[in-house]
């Protein structure tokens, strides 16, 4: 079903329910914002609401994650922090003038008169977005107790919940994305179908599932009436939920990361898994993507993109290394147009219309940590992995499974989730 959006005076057609950032990408609107300090153009990045790259003003509310806003008829979207427009932002000159960077800590501290003027200017340049137009009404929070709560409806979370449901535990899964399935949707072939199967299996096991439900924090000192201390707060579109359970299973997965290279924040530089997520929405990230990295995921993505007719430039990260993203000058605010590589010591330029970078997603371990889990820095597994015993137990009443314990990929994460769900039941 098609809906109409209003974007800065233009009308744009989109599929109902499509994330706003994807709808704009398809419509050719690729620069979504300008950065706080240097006014560098920015576009979408992770497509999962974790990175802060696609913040826009939607229906009069500032700083909405465009990848988490579903398209509905009449939606009004605008870009922020740019004058006269994000496509041509005169303040982009800051990035050019301060090519080596601007240390805001030490700039213009004297003489006093210059300092006062600069302070005023900085204040007016600061901030992303203006006050919301209105004040919405919110419902009162729902308070519930479950046998088990699973945070994350990805491969591990759905498998864990299924095991708990089959063991007769009243189980609720909360997931922050628009649709449940987590990293299944990043799978280059068949992602949506894999997600649907896992969701159906869980629902058949009697599991309750909330989408657009973000676990915001574990609060050990707050107490729901009649319960032991500690509550899990979940944010839903128009109100909160305050939850308690006998068992908490954190299957929060991992956040996509960027690599460090020149102009790595250019629109068109995306994590490899974002290209997979676009495929699950039937969108091709580009005709000539440059794909950086090695391993099973990268191979599968390269094949899937090629099958869709893309010409994929492979950069393995060893013989061929990524030095910088390339594109037009900032004043024109544009999408990536290629990359600079280091090939056995020689500089080489390649053209392309997307730069896709792969590295192991970093475990999303904040919630387990708040709830008593320990972490350890393991770079080869993605970052600070949540630690657990052989049953997946990380702390009293707390289990962890899947990529949050170190990158596994969907198949292994699902197996781990099943084992942990059985252990926790």
């Amino acid at each position: 079903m098609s809906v109409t959006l209003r974007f800065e005076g233009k009308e744009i057609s989109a599929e109902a329910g499509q994330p706003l950032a994807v709808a704009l990408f398809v419509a050719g609107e690729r620069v979504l914002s300008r950065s706080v300090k240097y006014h560098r153009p920015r576009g979408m990045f992770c497509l999962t609401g974790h990175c802060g790259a696609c913040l826009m003003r939607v229906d009069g509310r500032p700083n909405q994650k465009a990848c988490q806003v579903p398209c509905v008829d009449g939606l009004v979207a605008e870009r922020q922090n740019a004058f006269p427009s994000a496509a041509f932002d005169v303040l982009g000159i800051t990035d050019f003038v301060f090519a080596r960077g601007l240390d805001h800590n030490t700039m213009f501290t004297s003489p006093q008169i210059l300092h006062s003027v600069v302070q005023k200017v900085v204040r007016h340049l600061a901030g992303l977005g203006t006050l919301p137009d209105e004040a919405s009404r919110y419902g009162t929070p729902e308070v519930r107790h479950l046998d088990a709560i699973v945070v994350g409806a990805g491969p591990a979370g759905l498998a864990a919940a299924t095991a708990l449901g089959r063991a007769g535990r009243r189980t609720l899964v909360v997931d922050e994305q628009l649709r449940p399935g987590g990293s299944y949707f990043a799978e280059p072939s068949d992602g949506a179908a894999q997600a649907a199967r896992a969701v159906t299996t869980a629902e058949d096991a009697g599991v309750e599932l909330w989408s657009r439900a973000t676990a915001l924090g574990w609060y050990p000192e707050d107490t729901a009436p009649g319960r032991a201390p500690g509550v899990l707060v979940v944010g839903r579109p128009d109100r909160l939920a305050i939850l308690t359970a006998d068992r908490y299973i954190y299957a929060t997965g991992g956040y996509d990361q960027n690599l460090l290279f020149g102009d790595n924040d250019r629109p068109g530089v995306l994590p490899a898994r974002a290209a997979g997520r676009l495929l699950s929405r039937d969108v091709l990230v580009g005709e000539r993507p440059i794909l950086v990295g090695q391993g099973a995921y990268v191979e599968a993505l390269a094949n899937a993109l090629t099958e869709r007719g893309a010409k994929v430039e492979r950069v393995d990260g060893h013989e061929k290394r990524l030095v910088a993203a390339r594109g037009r000058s900032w004043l024109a605010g544009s999408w990536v147009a290629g990359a600079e590589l280091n090939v056995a010591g020689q500089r080489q330029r390649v053209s392309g219309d997307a730069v896709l970078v792969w590295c192991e997603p970093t475990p999303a371990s904040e919630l387990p940590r708040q709830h008593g889990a320990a972490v350890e820095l393991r770079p080869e597994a993605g970052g600070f992995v949540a630690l657990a015993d052989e049953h997946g137990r990380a702390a009293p009443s707390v289990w962890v499974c899947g990529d949050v314990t170190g990158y596994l990929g969907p198949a292994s994460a699902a197996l781990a989730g099943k084992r942990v769900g059985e252990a926790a039941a």
Partner: protein
Amino acid sequence: MKILVCRCEDVTLEEITHVLDRGFVSVEECKRLTGLGTGPCQGKECMLACALLCHAAGGGAHPITPFTARPPLSPTPLGALATALTTSLTTEDDE
């Protein structure tokens, strides 16, 4: 040409390196001195890169720890909290 470590706050690799060079080789110190991790994503995209940089700069002699995990894990409207009946939550003081 800039290499961005923290996209939300426009913190470059050069800035982080400058901090590390002065012996501040922990994630918390990098955060305080550059603002890395204090923007809308609260470090989801950048904290790991910072931790690895600290490690490479000699901070690995002592355990590298992430910044304190504070709620909310996603930006949350004041209005959604304002409707909570505080009587539905108790703390020790109410006993």
